[in-house]
């Protein structure tokens, strides 16, 4: 028997519905002993035909459709979509709307990275990080609810501007919350840096060299942790990103530790952006949106640097009220694929955090469900919606604080 035939390869299925992976993706790990020697990825368990659906909806309706592509990056797809439609229309939006858009985008980045960091801690058995992240993320979501109207799915974007204004008190609330957040981010960073076990686990896991990241066309923090200096917000500025001071963090190691540190630094940069935008908003007078009458024939590309990387929207218009073709590419589409390289050669325990380091996203909008002892629902969905509305109104009136 040859040496090759003696190899015993075992397949370990992870997913499609696995307690560790919140999203339905199927990873088939091929292992030899403890070592991962191959990986097959299957997706498509959550395919909803959104591109096809968009071809049958009015441009305004598509906005609501794309907002529901993702629960956690709920504003990223609308952001790229409005950029795309405004490009076709040749539209420049009011200054005030630019600042508000950037604030919404960065609030989302912070709470999304917080969620990833918490989950990463949880995956590694470091539940203190998980609890801290959830604790410090909550005030941000409450602020979103108070000022945008919802914790997720804010519906702030609108072709030609934004849907709701942020007054001076709202701007001050952002600055206050950001000042409170900064020391917490330092604390989280120290907790990770100073923990020898965590450091050792993250340092050796899931390395993606620059050459491979380029070949796989990785985007976002995945690319920036592997030494690729890209960020749509800087490379092709939109909204208010060219009007405020901030930097793009880049590291060269390509391991999970680098991906963690990149996300922590990005949160700090988001804090800087939000504070500057909130201050500038107090001086920027005028409307928050402009009216558009129709979308002319043509084609356009819109993108936005979402927490996970570049969101890409392409629209072809033949005139009329619906897009002729609407192509959407989310960042995970490029990043999940890199696991084929990053996981292979590592061990099974490292595979869990490497797969999670891509930050596949899931919806955290489920707010509450009350059941009695027999498992029956106490509230109907209508009652739950009424409770949610009442809470939002009470927060706006300042009674909840």
């Amino acid at each position: 028997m040859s040496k090759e035939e003696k190899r015993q390869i075992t397949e370990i299925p992870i997913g499609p519905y696995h307690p560790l992976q919140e999203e339905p993706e199927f990873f088939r790990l091929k292992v030899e002993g403890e070592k991962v020697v191959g990986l097959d990825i299957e997706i498509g368990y959550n395919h909803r035909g959104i591109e096809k659906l968009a071809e049958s909806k009015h441009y305004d309706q598509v906005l609501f459709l794309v907002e529901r592509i993702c629960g956690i990056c709920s504003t990223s797809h609308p952001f790229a979509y409005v950029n795309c439609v405004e490009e076709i229309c040749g539209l420049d939006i009011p200054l005030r709307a630019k600042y508000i858009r950037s604030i919404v985008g960065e609030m989302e980045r912070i709470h999304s990275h917080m969620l990833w960091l918490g989950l990463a801690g949880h995956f590694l058995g470091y539940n203190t990080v998980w609890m801290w992240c959830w604790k410090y993320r909550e005030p941000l979501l409450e602020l979103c609810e108070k000022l945008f109207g919802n914790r997720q799915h804010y519906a702030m974007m609108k072709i030609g501007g934004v849907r709701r204004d942020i007054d001076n008190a709202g701007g001050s609330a952002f600055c206050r919350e950001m000042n409170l957040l900064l020391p917490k981010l330092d604390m989280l960073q120290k907790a990770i840096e100073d923990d020898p076990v965590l450091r050792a686990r993250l340092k050796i896991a899931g390395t993606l060299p620059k050459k491979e990241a380029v070949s796989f066309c990785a985007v976002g923090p995945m690319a920036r942790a592997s030494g690729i200096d890209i960020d749509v917000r800087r490379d092709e500025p939109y909204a208010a990103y060219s009007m405020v001071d901030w930097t793009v963090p880049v590291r060269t190691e390509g391991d999970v530790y680098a991906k963690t540190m990149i996300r922590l630094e990005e949160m700090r940069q988001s804090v800087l952006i939000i504070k500057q935008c909130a201050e500038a908003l107090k001086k920027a007078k005028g409307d928050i949106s402009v009216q558009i009458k129709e979308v002319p024939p043509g084609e356009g590309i819109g993108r936005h640097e979402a927490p996970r990387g570049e969101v890409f929207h392409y629209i072809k218009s033949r005139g009329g009220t619906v897009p002729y073709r609407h192509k959407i590419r989310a960042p995970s589409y490029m990043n999940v694929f890199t696991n084929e390289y990053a996981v292979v050669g590592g061990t099974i325990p490292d595979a869990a955090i490497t797969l999670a380091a891509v930050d596949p996203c899931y919806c955290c909008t489920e707010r509450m469900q009350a059941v009695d002892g027999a498992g029956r629902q106490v509230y109907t969905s209508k009652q739950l919606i009424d409770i949610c509305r009442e809470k939002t109104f009470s927060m706006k009136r300042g009674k909840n604080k």
Partner: protein
Amino acid sequence: MELIELLEKNLGKKIKSLDRPREKRIYIEISPEDLRFAAEFLFNSMKCRFSTASGMDEEEHFEILYHFSLDSKGIFINLRVKTERKKPEVDTISDIIKGARWIEREMHELLGVNFKGNEELGNLLLSRDYRGPKHPLRKK
């Protein structure tokens, strides 16, 4: 106009038409047989990042737009390839760019375009028990 000159110098007669509707967007139409050369030039020589590709049914033919991002300048260079409706087929670029493997599978599945040389054109998004139109993104 330095970039346009560079493209014209290297792609030369392969360019069927070049359109720049906005400063940051360049659309270049090429023949399907020149796709691999152009993709290799943009990806390897010009260090563009392959963002994705959009396949669409233009009724009389199929069109595929390969979106390359020149991140250092924030410019998108889009290669437009048209393929006939009777036998929609273009060469694969997935051996040049690993990041194109999934999107070629997706276009094969949803639009029914064959990518010559890509060995793994199995279903990516649709489930095995899918019973709808064979290629859902086709208009007719």
